[in-house]
């Protein structure tokens, strides 16, 4: 069989080699602090400093934003982000802190902002020097996102913004926010507009950021209150009243189905990190005794572990099959399953880990007898953040049923 047609392009080969060499020499060392499970629970400046330094180094090495044009701080490469992601994953590097910037803000700004704004914002976004956050959800607008009420009122070539955003991840560190708001109350969808807003510089001057505490006891998301914040019209993306269309670009990329790949990194394995994978589950089962034997020998548990390995493998192979044209019938059928499956598999791995741990599952962070330092109950609880954020699992199933299967739109 001819393999060559499906191997990397010469550019990709060379780039992969570059990533490998660089990572071998420059993979960051152990953090001095316990890292959270994901960027959504970064709580302290020390954690952020470590992670920001890593993102900056990876950006300087050309592994972030590689497929964006050089003019906006990218690498002008072709289909190379995927390669960088694979290599960072293989090297088990730490995660990148500016997730919302990289995954959502960058493609949105790239497709909808004026050149001047892109050229100004994107380089510092890619390097991680500017952290970004996403101001979409509100107390009255979650799954039904188009009902947001935060309002911008025109004042000459400025806008006055008032409103209340919630669950705003990373707002406590963010320089910039992508902001979906209303400029017209008489049309639900056509009354929406989209802005990028510098929030850090406006703290105490129209913007208040207050932490919300998660069920785990961690912080990481916030409420953000706008009181007469004045914003220049040049920060508006696309036309007035086109906010919903712009938000679709954001959501498409957030759900992994956009054309610009999100830079993503490794899943570090170190003393201070924990990964929710079936291999950690197997380690746990091997080290947990049940009736005097390792839990791993229990036939029921073996079956449950195999079920999860099968689902985990299926998800990984979906990504690979999505690139083989002859093996799919609908262009976004596999991509749109990604977030839903990843979050539900992680949740089920966590649930099974607690069952395996049995009585020890009662032990939490800070207890020296807790399996994996108490991170299993932590990651299990955090998995609910993932099945809720970025469109709940129920909403994802609506989208798949409607866009892919063509079923009638549910309310």
């Amino acid at each position, binding site marked *: 069989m001819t*393999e060559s047609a499906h191997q990397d392009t010469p550019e990709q080969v060379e780039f992969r080699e570059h990533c490998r060499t660089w990572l071998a020499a420059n993979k960051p060392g152990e953090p001095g602090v316990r890292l959270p499970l994901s960027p959504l629970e970064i709580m302290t400046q020390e954690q952020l400093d470590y992670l920001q330094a890593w993102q900056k180094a990876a950006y300087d090495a050309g592994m972030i934003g590689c497929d964006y044009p050089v003019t906006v701080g990218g690498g002008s490469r072709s289909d190379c982000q995927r390669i960088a992601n694979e290599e960072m994953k293989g090297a088990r590097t730490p995660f990148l802190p500016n997730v919302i910037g990289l995954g959502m803000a960058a493609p949105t700004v790239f497709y909808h902002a004026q050149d001047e704004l892109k050229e100004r914002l994107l380089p510092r976004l890619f390097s991680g020097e500017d952290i970004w956050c996403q101001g979409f959800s509100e107390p009255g607008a979650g799954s039904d996102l188009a009902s947001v009420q935060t309002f911008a009122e025109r004042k000459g070539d400025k806008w006055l913004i008032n409103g209340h955003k919630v669950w705003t991840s990373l707002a406590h560190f963010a320089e910039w926010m992508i902001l979906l708001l209303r400029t017209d109350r008489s049309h639900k969808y056509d009354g929406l507009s989209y802005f990028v807003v510098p929030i850090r510089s406006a703290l105490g001057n129209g913007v208040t950021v207050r932490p919300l505490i998660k069920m785990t006891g961690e912080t990481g998301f916030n409420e953000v209150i706008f009181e007469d914040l004045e914003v220049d019209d040049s920060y508006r993306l696309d036309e007035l009243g086109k906010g919903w269309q712009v938000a679709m670009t954001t959501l498409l990329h957030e759900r992994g189905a956009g054309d610009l790949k999100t830079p993503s990194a490794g899943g570090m394995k170190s003393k201070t990190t924990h990964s929710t994978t079936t291999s950690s589950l197997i380690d746990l089962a091997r080290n947990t005794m049940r009736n005097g034997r390792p839990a791993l020998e229990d036939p029921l548990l*073996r079956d449950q572990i*195999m079920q999860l390995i099968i*689902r985990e*493998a299926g998800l990984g192979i979906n990504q690979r099959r999505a690139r083989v044209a002859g*093996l799919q019938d609908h262009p976004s059928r596999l991509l749109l399953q990604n977030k839903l499956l990843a979050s539900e598999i992680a949740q089920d791995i966590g649930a099974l880990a607690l069952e395996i741990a049995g009585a020890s599952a009662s032990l939490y962070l800070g207890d020296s007898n807790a399996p994996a330092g108490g991170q299993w109950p932590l990651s299990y609880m955090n998995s609910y953040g993932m099945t809720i954020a970025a469109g709940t699992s129920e909403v994802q199933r609506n989208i798949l049923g409607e866009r892919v299967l063509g079923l*009638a739109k549910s309310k």
Partner: protein
Amino acid sequence: MTQPDNFGFEEEAALLKDSARKFFADNFTTDKLHTMVAADFEPERMSGCHWDAALWQQLVELGWAAVAVPESAGGLGMPLSAVAGLVEEVGRAAFPCPLLATLNAVYVLAAIGADAETALTEIAEGRTASLATINRDGAWDAALTEVVCDAGTLSGTAWFVQDARKVDRLLVAARNGERIALYWVPIDAPGVTVQPDAIVDLTRDQAHIAFDSVAAEPVCADGLPALQQAMPAVWTLLAADITGAAEWQLQTTVDYANARQQFDHSLGFFQAVKHPLVDVMIHIDQSKSLVYNAACAFDFEPDEAARFAHMAKASASDLAAFASGRAVQFHGGIGFTWECFLHLYFKRQTHSQMLWGDGPWHRARMADIVLGKVA
């Protein structure tokens, strides 16, 4: 050895899959299938063997029965991922034919090597075959065969032989002294009696086959290694068939959910219908990805073939049950009737779910590979 990124699924594989889908759409509608196999609804009827031998002959002439036969024996020698693509379409059409049975024999024969050249050539020329390796308990392990070879003749019974009344040859596993040997036996050889089973599935036939002093020469004196090497292909292809059939079940149910109105909406509007249909799709995609991964491993990464094939068949067996249940449930009363075509797929899937091991069976073996056996 590593797997190529595209599963070894090249352009010719895509062409084969597309033309198979088109062939069945043009020549073999579900309506035709129903008329052919479901004329009689008597529950205690003896299983028939209803199929369109002339249409099958067209497939043979297209070369599809020889896709897996090595080129050295006159076949097309296509990779397993290409063969899986073809089988997926056969499953989607639920086409009654001895393709899967014959492919299974091909992979065992190919694993035997030079001694099986003659048998493989016969298949390349259009003969069909089925494996006769399983005992009365349905233990999917040829080491437990009830057939014995003594002084050059076979005696005993082989069970769960697929499409037995459609095939020309049997590849029989028989105990010969300490070993399990394999024999290539014409179905009409003196002393062979085909005893049809009454089975649930209307799209296949199955039999147990009695051997009474059947004269036979082994094609392989020590058959278990060849069987062991071939079984991942057998599991993978059946999983491909299930996946194709599940795609038909999903599409048919989606069409119905769009057409049928209740409470002023089409059924698909309601999430109690919509979400499980999405879950069927997700399960299809998982199984399908695992099928092509297993197929690719068979050709490119043989050390991993068994593990990946267990994953594919475990996933597909569960899919068979899940897709069938949801399809019937979401058709309501009509889905429960003989008149509605769904029952054909429900029954085919039930048969496929169990054949060559169901989900728990494959996961138990996979666990032995992944975690090590329990002492």
